[in-house]
């Protein structure tokens, strides 16, 4: 027994110590080859490690993310970089591998960090199973309370809000504000009058969008104005709805319009109804109403998709005058082709202010136009400066262009 222990102690004294890899050092691998002692393989030269390995919390995010950057290894023939991570705590660092990246990469984003832990990252340049390691500074991820990347949006919003509030203030003071004519909206009175004379109903289609979309809200605002006119003239107004939330709002608006003009008894709740949520089933139902009830006037205002031409063309077939408006750019050509008047994009949003002619609404319309003008001027200026900066001697303009971009 004593001999065995002595032998073990002797072996332990002469055996080489286990190598623990230290940062900045290479890990030599001694390959155990076959054959005689003299034919043992030479150790593989490890590559030089990457330098300036820096880890920092990913900015402008909700946490759990750390950015890692490094300068490439001076050795050009590396196979790639192995990225490892260790939790900083009491005791020795234990690195787990995260990913293996090609040699052309010099950054990595770890999106699986825990905000409560501190980490140390290791980037190892790899060549033939040999590694050149470099460790980063300790780092912890944290969520931010403000996304600085969106600062330009705040600036743009501030400009628009300023102009809107400024012109609302002026409108309250009684200042006359100019709004250009919108042919489609000027035709509303004529369209309602036509239906009244012909004794035929008016069909109002508020689109297939839901109440969360601005175009649907704009459409319902117009419905309110049109309902007042139809209540005054005693013309039937049919409003089929595709969205179950839009339906009760549309019904309330028409009811309120009748009450406002002093004719609550003429309100027919059955004329405003829910049809279906299926797109083409809704289109078929509305087409059926057009063919059976033969409305004299169709209003197609709101969000439409592939069914736009189906509705518009059926309306043309029954001889109705049609006023359409949508913010869906792909559907505008169909409306322009098949309808008498088309409200393009923001004209739909301006419609309620245009029809109501209330000073506050008109003020906001003028304000948003001025805000838009400022933003367009900045965009054009920035693009022009960027273009000019390509000329010799004018490279400094890139800086100005970047400031405008930010």
């Amino acid at each position, binding site marked *: 027994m004593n001999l065995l222990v002595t032998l073990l102690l002797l072996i332990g004294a002469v055996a080489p110590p286990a190598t623990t890899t230290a940062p900045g050092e290479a890990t030599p691998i001694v390959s155990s080859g076959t054959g005689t002692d003299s034919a043992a393989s030479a150790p593989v030269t490890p590559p030089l490690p990457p330098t300036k390995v820096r880890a920092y919390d990913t900015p402008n995010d909700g946490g759990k993310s750390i950015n890692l950057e490094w300068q490439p290894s001076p050795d050009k023939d590396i196979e790639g970089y192995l990225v490892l991570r260790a939790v900083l705590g009491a005791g020795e660092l234990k690195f787990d591998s995260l990913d293996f990246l090609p040699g052309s990469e010099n950054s990595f984003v770890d999106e699986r960090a825990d905000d409560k832990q501190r980490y140390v990252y290791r980037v190892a340049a790899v060549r033939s199973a040999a590694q050149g390691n470099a460790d980063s500074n300790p780092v912890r991820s944290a969520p931010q309370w403000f996304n600085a990347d969106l600062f330009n949006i705040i600036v743009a919003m501030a400009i628009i809000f300023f102009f809107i509030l400024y012109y609302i203030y002026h409108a309250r003071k009684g200042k006359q504000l100019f709004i250009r004519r919108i042919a489609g909206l000027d035709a509303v009175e004529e369209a309602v009058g036509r239906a009244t004379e012909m004794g035929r109903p008016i069909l109002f289609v508020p689109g297939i969008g839901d109440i969360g979309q601005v175009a649907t809200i704009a459409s319902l605002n117009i419905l309110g104005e049109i309902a007042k006119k139809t209540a005054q003239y005693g013309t039937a107004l049919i409003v089929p709805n595709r969205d179950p939330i839009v339906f009760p709002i549309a019904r309330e608006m028409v009811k309120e319009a009748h009450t406002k003009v002093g004719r609550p008894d003429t309100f027919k709740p059955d004329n405003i109804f829910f049809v279906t949520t299926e797109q083409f089933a809704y289109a078929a139902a509305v087409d059926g109403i057009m063919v059976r009830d033969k409305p004299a006037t169709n209003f197609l205002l709101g969000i439409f998709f592939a069914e736009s031409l189906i509705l518009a063309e059926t309306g043309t077939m029954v001889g109705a005058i049609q006023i359409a408006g949508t913010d869906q750019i*792909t559907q505008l050509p169909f409306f322009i082709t098949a309808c008498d008047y088309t409200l393009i994009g923001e004209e739909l949003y301006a419609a309620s202010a245009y029809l109501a002619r209330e000073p506050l609404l008109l003020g906001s319309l003028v304000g948003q136009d001025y805000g838009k003008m400022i933003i367009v001027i900045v965009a054009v200026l920035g693009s022009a400066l960027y273009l000019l900066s390509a000329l010799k001697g004018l490279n400094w303009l890139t800086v100005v262009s970047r400031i405008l971009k930010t």
Partner: protein
Amino acid sequence: MTANAPEKKTFWQWLATIDRRILYLVMCLVVVIPLIAMLRSTVEVTSPVQDVFNAIESLAVHQKPLLVSVDFDPTSRAEMYPMLTAILRHAFARRVKVVELGIWQTGFGLAQRALNETATEYGMKYGEDYVFLGFKVGVDAVILGMGENIKKTFPVDARKIPLDSSPMMSSIRKLSDFGLIVSISAGTPGYQDWLLYAQARYHVRTAAGTTAVSAADAYPYLGSGQLTGLLAGMKGAAEYEALDAQHGFKQASTLASTAMPALSYAHIAIIILVIIGNIGFFASRRRK
């Protein structure tokens, strides 16, 4: 006293106001006859479609799997289904592993049918060569969840088989393990959601197939490099089928290629009718 008889239309006036039923009949004949006669036309492949093809070829070379997102419903089947089958045939012919899912509930049946059809053609084995994840509600939650951990987002596939027991899923843990995402989308949610979350956040290459009407909206993404490639409408599908044929991949059906002559003649018919209408319009105006 006789009542005024309706004024007889001149030939030119008639040309300017042809009854729409005649127009519909012409359209019907122009579409149906080429289909019945099984006419064929050559389709030249454009670079956005070639880019998608090349991207899937590179998956075969680098042995990376493909994720296909079926984002359309049966109403857009005519344009989108041929795209889907053409891409699946290419992937299976090159032995690329395919994972398919849908973010449109109503597209579930089509997604399943396309996979079954094409996998059977190429003798692919479920679980080893392809997996169908099915449909899950909540686009951004699904994509973001898959970005972190696919098995956590889809513990079982559409056949209720645990993903852990599918051999091919052992090496596919998150979105960045895919070499390419192809979103065949007819609207929203669609390829834009894949670009926003998968491409921008997890840097996975993304290609798209869209309807012809929506293709123009996708051009900016193509130009900026966010989209690797684009198939636009039935023509895009026909181009991909042509590429499959050029490379000798077997195809049990070529729906888009079959429809191309009908599409071409329909376009020409519309142009001719519009010209006739204009001739009648100008001639009858001159005679007044």
